[in-house]
């Protein structure tokens, strides 16, 4: 029988942090940052990333609590475990930052992205694009005799896959929102459960 092939830190579902703090392995983490919805806060957060040389793979931001003036920034970043910890510490000490959650480290989470695809084409290619859109559960939100705009929600991988399929069929433009993410379950809300 072959030994179990478990890579350290490969699972975010473990109760233990198996990551080697000194490992040089680059990990991708999704952070949720709750901030005051004031002018300049986004610039301050982004300035931290550029000023200290951290990566941003995806960034979304919108107000989520109008009365409390709170916005939620979801940022996907890459780095060694030490860099990820440092990013979290740097974010959490900022004055307008209320909470920082490392969704990748804290447990399972759902991650979704919305994308719009403009596909130009006639004849068979057009029919094939429509057929694939149905398979991927993309909606047609605009149509002319020579083009479609599809709308699709899913994981970034699903959106990448759909974009790859559309490319030979006449994909001319794509718009993506970046990732919105929430932790699964109610573990962060003991009162609500």
């Amino acid at each position, binding site marked *: 029988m072959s030994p179990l092939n478990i890579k350290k830190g490969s699972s975010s579902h473990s109760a233990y942090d198996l990551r080697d*703090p*000194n490992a040089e392995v680059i990990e991708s983490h999704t952070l949720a940052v709750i901030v005051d919805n004031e*002018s*300049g806060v986004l*610039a*301050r957060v982004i*300035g931290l990333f550029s*000023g200290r040389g951290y990566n941003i793979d995806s960034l979304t931001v919108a107000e989520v609590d109008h009365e409390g003036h709170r916005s939620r920034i979801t940022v996907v970043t890459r780095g060694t475990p*030490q860099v990820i*910890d*440092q990013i979290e*510490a*740097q974010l*959490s*000490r900022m*004055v*307008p930052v*209320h909470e920082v959650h490392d969704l990748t480290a804290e447990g399972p989470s759902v991650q979704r992205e919305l994308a719009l695809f403009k596909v130009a084409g006639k004849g068979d290619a057009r029919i094939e694009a429509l057929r694939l859109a149905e398979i991927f559960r993309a909606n047609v939100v605009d149509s002319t005799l020579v083009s479609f705009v599809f709308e699709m929600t899913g994981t970034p991988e699903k959106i990448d896959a759909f974009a790859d399929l559309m490319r030979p069929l006449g994909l001319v433009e794509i718009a993506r929102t970046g990732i919105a993410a929430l932790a699964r379950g109610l573990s962060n809300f003991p009162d609500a459960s």
Partner: protein
Amino acid sequence: MTKAMTGARMVVQALKDQGVEVVFGYPGGAVLPIYDEIFQQNDIRHVLVRHEQGAVHMAEGYARSTGKPGVVLVTSGPGATNAVTGLTDALMDSIPLVVLTGQVPTFMIGTDGFQEADTVGITRPCTKMNWLVKDTAKLSETIHQAFHVAMKGRPGPVLVDIPKDVQFATADYTPKDRIRITHYQPKTAGDPDQIARLVEMIETAERPILYTGGGVINSGPRASQLLRELTAATGFPVTSTLMGLGAYPASGKNWVGMLGMHGLYEANLAMHGCDVMINIGARFDDRITGRIKDFSPRSRKAHIDIDPSSINKVVRVDVPILGDVTLVLEETLRQWKARGSKTNAAGLAKWWRQIGEWRAVKCLTYRNSDKVIKPQYALERLEALTKGRDRYITTEVGQHQMWAAQFLGFEDPNRWMTSGGLGTMGYGLPASIGVQIAHPEALVINVAGEASWLMNMQEMGTAMQFRAPVKQFILNNERLGMVRQWQELLHGERYSSSWSESLPDFVKLAEAFGCKGIKCSDPRHLDDAIMEMLDYDGPVIFDCLVEKHENCFPMIPSGKPHNEMLLGDADTQGVIGSKGAVLV
């Protein structure tokens, strides 16, 4: 009771409510309404500087020597951009400042108006927090929040940008005790479980070292007291960073001197050889650690810091303790005493014998001369002739700064003001004025190099106008000494642009400002000249002509670990490889 008033009056009222006694500033178009209010009251003193950078450094000197926030008021555009160096300096050294800037009226923002600059944009990376206030109703609350943020947690500079129409408009004033409670309440008490682990380390350590930093000073005088108590009770050796000098007295039995690139041999070898390192309010700066890979390789490390991002940033530690030094040390002492105040006495005795051997190297020895004043000798004499006096020292940046740290002894916190993190030449003269304004009766000396000193020498005008009898002790080697030293060691003795030509005659310069000038180049006359400086009731510019090619030792070359120190010129041949030359 809220009261309606103009934004400009609100600014002054808010400063009064915050207990501000002095503001360092420079007027201009966009702050005229505030200056008009300052003119019509007598509670807050305004110190008119000669350049906005000077205002910020003065506020830093004031803050560092009193523990209170320094307050700066400057105009829009160039007023604000001139403050940027000081803001960055204060951010690096965790100095609490509240900087108020004027701005063009709200309806002109974005039109490239006269003296318009995106002040909050420019200063965002060099402040702890900043605000552009577009509504007078929010102005007083924002200023109170600004003081809260500047002082709470790891202190730092904050900036409030106030458009001119906001200063003219009227709204209700919100008093200090009526503002919304801000969520910004950093954790100050350390985790008792982590502190228990620290106590265990204290009990068993064979070769411990207390590595203290500016955080001890920022935590307040009680932190220094607790450090002294802990040291006396445990018998552990204490070293300190440049920023932490004075927290433990230089005359103290357990003092092993400053550590770091130009720190003492015994301090650096103790850091390298220890088995337990207790970092109290320091941040493993690159001037301290040398090569990270070989930094104190055999020690377990604890780190007390109020800033979560300081912990595990550079060096991974075994016991991280997030909290304020005062509270953490109190709890540490409480737990340690409750468990019987144990230490490993046999191990400690052996460790002190080892440290004694390192001390016997006498790493600060230099070759004195009876022809020319050695800079080390000048500082030894300054130390001897000012000992026991109510003395505050500021410095500029360079060799003289390191020699001052090595040869002057600090017995108390808040007596040593220097630009540590940013290394800002031009810091010392304005900082000395800020210190003197806060302590009018004290002896305030700026130990300077001639090149640094020239960078903000216009502030002698401020010293004269406000009768700040600051002593400018300039070690004049007609060189950018530290640059020259690095060029000698690293760049084949090619001294590119590192000498000061066309220097002014400092005695005549002093006369031009209306203060006293003293020049000394003979070691035999040095004592008399220093006494003349100390006895003079007013500002003095002391031009101390020193040896031109003296190097500052000991030195850990960049890219080297602590146990590869250079002790003198004989050690320097070919020591720094090309890898080290890339580092600063």
